[in-house]
C-alpha cells in the first residue's frame, strides 16, 4: 500500500536488467529515486543522469521531486549515455539511427518498420520483432533501449526477425 506522502516510480537504465518499481517520499529529491533503485539491486553508475521516458533532457538529481515532471507511476531512466546509436539489420541491409537512451523499444521498432527504416506494411510490421543481434533476446516494447547498452559504447544492434508460429 502506497502511503499518502509517497509515490511509486518505474525505473530503468544502465545495469538495470528488469523494470524496477521504487517508492519514495513526495518531498524528496530526484537523487532519492536513484538511491531507492540502487537499494533494490539496480547498479546505476556514478555520474549517471536521469531522464523521463522518451526524453533526453537531463533532470537535475538535486531538484525536489515536486519541481519536476515526475509523478506517481512515472517512468524514468538513469544512464550515463544520453543517446544510443541503434543499428537494425533486415534482409541483408542495415539502417542506423540515434535515439534517447530513454526511448522505448516500441519507438525504435516504429522507426525500423517505418518509411525511414525498412518500410514494412502494417501487417508485416506487426509480425516482426526486434531481436538483439547475436542473442535470442527480444526486449519487450516497454524496455528502454539504454538498458541494453553500457557506457561506452552507447550503441546496440538488432535484427528485425519474423514471429514464428509454434508447432511440432
Amino acid at each position: 500500500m502506497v502511503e499518502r506522502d509517497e509515490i511509486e516510480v518505474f525505473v530503468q537504465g544502465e545495469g538495470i536488467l528488469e523494470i524496477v518499481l521504487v517508492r519514495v517520499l513526495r518531498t524528496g529529491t530526484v537523487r532519492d529515486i536513484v538511491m531507492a533503485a540502487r537499494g533494490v539491486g539496480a547498479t546505476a553508475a556514478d555520474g549517471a543522469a536521469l531522464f523521463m521516458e522518451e526524453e533526453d533532457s537531463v533532470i537535475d538529481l538535486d531538484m525536489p521531486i515536486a519541481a519536476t515532471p515526475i509523478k506517481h507511476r512515472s517512468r524514468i531512466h538513469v544512464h550515463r549515455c544520453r543517446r544510443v546509436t541503434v543499428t537494425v539489420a533486415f534482409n541483408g541491409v542495415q539502417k542506423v539511427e540515434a535515439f534517447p537512451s530513454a526511448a522505448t523499444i516500441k519507438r525504435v521498432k516504429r522507426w525500423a518498420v517505418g518509411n525511414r527504416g525498412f518500410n514494412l506494411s502494417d501487417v508485416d510490421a506487426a509480425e516482426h520483432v526486434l531481436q538483439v543481434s547475436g542473442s535470442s533476446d527480444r526486449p519487450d516494447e516497454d524496455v528502454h533501449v539504454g538498458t541494453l547498452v553500457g557506457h561506452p559504447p552507447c550503441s546496440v544492434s538488432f535484427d528485425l526477425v519474423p514471429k514464428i508460429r509454434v508447432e511440432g
Partner: protein
Amino acid sequence: MPMEMAEMVLRVHLDAGPFQSGVDRGRWRLIGISWPHVLIAVSAAERPGAPSEYAFRFECTGYPKMPPTAQPWSEAGDAALPHDRWPAGRHRVPAAFNPHWKSGEALYLPCDRLAIDGHDPWVTQHPSLIWSPQRDITQYVHVVYELLNSSDYSGLRRP
C-alpha cells in the same frame, strides 16, 4: 497454514516492476490468487463481437523454478472457458490457443509447463519463448498479451 515459498515469491513478483508496468499500461490485471492458482485478465485488441480481455488461470506449483501452466478461464462462471469463447486467429493465435489440445487445459506455448514437456526442439526453435526461472510470471503473461494484440488475432472462435 504457513504460505508456501512459491506463493510468497509469486506475490512479490506480482507487486514488482515488470508485472506492474503492464498493469499501469492497462495490458493486464490481477484478478485474484487461490494458491496454487492465480487468475489474470489480459487485454485484447478490439475485434467485432469479442471481449476486451480474456482471463487465464495460471497453475503455479513449483514457481518460479517450474514454469506455470495456463488455461482460458471464465471469471463469471469460475470454470474453464467454453471452447467457443476462446481466442481465434489465422496462424500463431490458433496454434497457441487450441482447445482440442490436452482438452484445453493448457496453452500450446514453449513457456507453458505442460506444453514444453516432450517438445525439446522448442528450446532451439523458440529460445525467446522458453521459461526462465530467473524472470517472473510476466514473461508468460506478455507472450499471451502479444498474441491477443497481434494482427493474427481475429476475435472469438465463434462470435
